[in-house]
């Protein structure tokens, strides 16, 4: 066996040990809770089947899966990068769905994602004008989600950019309890943002008894504390 093959196999051994330590540590099963969001997301993919933005959503889901794999294997920097990608691509998909011109430009490879436009306070996905267009009843809660999105994206970006303060989490290939917990903290926030954003944009499509039944637990588990969501399901 060549030296470089030995090197790569050696890495896989390390990674496998880290995975074992990760699952041993996770006595509260937070990893499986994160994994279950994968199923929740599939609900939206099935609901939106046939729409142009579906390919972005499918890619976004893959980012989320890869993020989790990277996390369990100790590739923390990359797990945060993919987690950020999950958020960005999902929200970009939603943003494109509201503008046919941009959608067509994107399909023609003439438009890229701009995070700042997604969270723009005047025209973005948490702006007053947007919320009033798609679900005005929920407008009391949008400020928190706007800040959450901005901040969690920035917090994950610290891993992407390799900020000094993040080095302790990423410098060595090893299992780190604090980093594992930190990832899940951010993942939880991102799941909340994504559920909220998908609900605001596509709530009109949840218009049959079957869909209401399927979606209620998925959505209520995350954002059921919001009165406008409870009202949606109570009517």
């Amino acid at each position, binding site marked *: 066996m060549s030296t470089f093959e030995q090197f790569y196999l050696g890495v896989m051994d390390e990674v496998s040990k880290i995975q074992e330590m990760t699952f041993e540590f996770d006595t509260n099963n937070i990893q499986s809770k994160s994994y279950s969001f994968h199923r929740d997301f599939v609900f939206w993919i099935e609901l939106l089947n046939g729409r142009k933005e579906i390919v972005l959503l499918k890619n976004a889901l893959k980012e989320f899966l890869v993020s989790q794999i990277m996390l369990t294997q100790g590739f923390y920097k990359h797990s945060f990068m993919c987690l950020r990608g999950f958020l960005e691509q999902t929200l970009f998909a939603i943003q494109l769905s509201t503008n046919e011109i941009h959608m067509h430009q994107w399909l023609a490879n003439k438009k890229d994602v701009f995070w700042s436009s997604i969270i723009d306070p005047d025209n973005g996905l948490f702006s007053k004008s947007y919320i009033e267009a798609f679900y005005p009843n929920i407008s*009391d809660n949008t400020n928190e989600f706007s800040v*959450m999105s901005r901040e969690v994206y920035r917090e994950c970006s610290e891993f992407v950019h390799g900020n000094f303060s993040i080095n302790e989490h990423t410098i060595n290939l090893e299992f780190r309890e604090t980093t594992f917990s930190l990832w899940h903290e951010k993942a939880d926030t991102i799941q909340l943002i994504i559920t909220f954003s998908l609900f605001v944009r596509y709530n009109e499509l949840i218009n049959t008894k079957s869909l209401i039944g399927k979606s209620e637990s998925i959505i209520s588990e995350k954002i059921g504390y919001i009165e406008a969501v409870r009202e949606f399901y109570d009517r």
Partner: protein
Amino acid sequence: MDTFFIRTEDIKLEEISEYFVETKQDREIINKIKGSSPVLLVGSRGIGKSFLLRIAEDEMLKSFELNKVLPVYITFRKASLIHTPDKNQFLSWMLSRICSDIIRQIRKKGLYVDNSVSLKYIVGEYIDNLHQKTKIEEMNEAFEDSWKKPQTTIDISTLPTVDNFVEAVEDLCTELKINRINLLIDEAAHIFIPEQQRQFFTLFRDIRSPFITVNAAVYPGVTIYGDTFQPTHDATVINYSRDVSDKNYLTQMKELVLKQADSNLAKALGARGEQFNILAYASAGNPRHLLKTIQATRNLSSLNTNNIIREYYRSDIWSEHSILAEKYSGMKNLIDWGRNFVEDTVLPELKRKNDHALKNKEKTTTYFWVSRNAPQLVQEALRILEYTGIVTGHSKGVKATKSEIGNRYCINIGCLFALESAVASSALNIVKNLTIGKMNEYGANSKAYAEIENIDFNQFDNLTENLEMQLDKSIDFLDLTTWQRGKLREVGIVTIGQVLSSSDEKIMQAYYVAEKRARQMRNSALAAVYEYLAG
């Protein structure tokens, strides 16, 4: 959760507008401050007076090219450090401070004209350029360092008289083509030093001119205006507070916190809205109380919120009040009496009233009334309570039962919540049913004043001795986080005096982080010292 900016001094001027949550009241106040009539902004510690002054400054700077009104922000927080034999030291220092800050602003704006004649009276000498330190700035520094060697005489021969100063500013405005200079004076008067109040308000009135607007932020309980200043005639007096029963109150307070929130806190604010509402009401509209209590709860859990309400509003908020008794020993008995009056009489009686009200589905209250014929010492004690924000003066000249006239006060609502065994269940009910129509009354000869007649009350005379005593005290007395104090101790800074006298490098060494953060922490430490010394 990151540490919040609790004090305005911690925020850079160019970033201040990012933290601003504008209300209709705030906009009206800022517009008045920017106007040509003087404003006296009165409010308790942490309510946001400094913040409004800085927003006004920021806006005036941004519109300077159009309006030609030059804002000059001045803080008198170092007043406690002035210790010279000159009996007019405070007036001299105020003038030197104002001149120094005008020079600084002119320098920053690049407005300086070489060999300016009009600047001579303000800088204290003829100079050919403003890039070096001027005599007046040296004089100002000497005053502010006088605590290190009290009784050192400072040469004030180049200090302008008040009249010369006013004329010099007029000439300067003409030369620099400025319409006027708007002075924004913060921490303007020390509530425990009447002579300083007198001198400040005399100056406030005397330097007014078409070319100088003077605005000042003071604490409630400042009542000594000197012989020439009359509050209602010589300034617009604005009492700054927030009304918890305003329909936008919770939204505005949440916005304020969101401006500084990380993703975890933003999430908690959404998911645990009720806990936030309780803390917001408890703060009674005081952002400093709100930010500190939120910082303490960490995740806004119900258990944490209950515990923090009790700890903060039964203990921490009182510790500020009690520190005054430590610092001003001549007033200790009066300060303690005020605390006992509120804790042993006002609060329990209000709680009884509210318990009865809630049981019988009646209205609740946070108000109490004191007859204007109550002993003068009672009024003094209440003045001190207003200063620390335990009590807010609401209305004067209110007629109570038996047609007696007196003043209505509002107790800090967090202090009421802290008496509840189950804060979560009763707090929001108390707020929902509040009425101004109900108040507990304490007449001219109320039994509650029984002990007051036995109290010795004297303002302390020896400022220097008192300052020395304060500087020897531990940094535990400062309003810093446990972490910040720990960091200072690591580099051997353990007393208040050592914070003041340590070099920049030493303090920044305590916080081995990037320079930007270290500077912020240094400013926090110094701001805490000035705040402590100011009372």
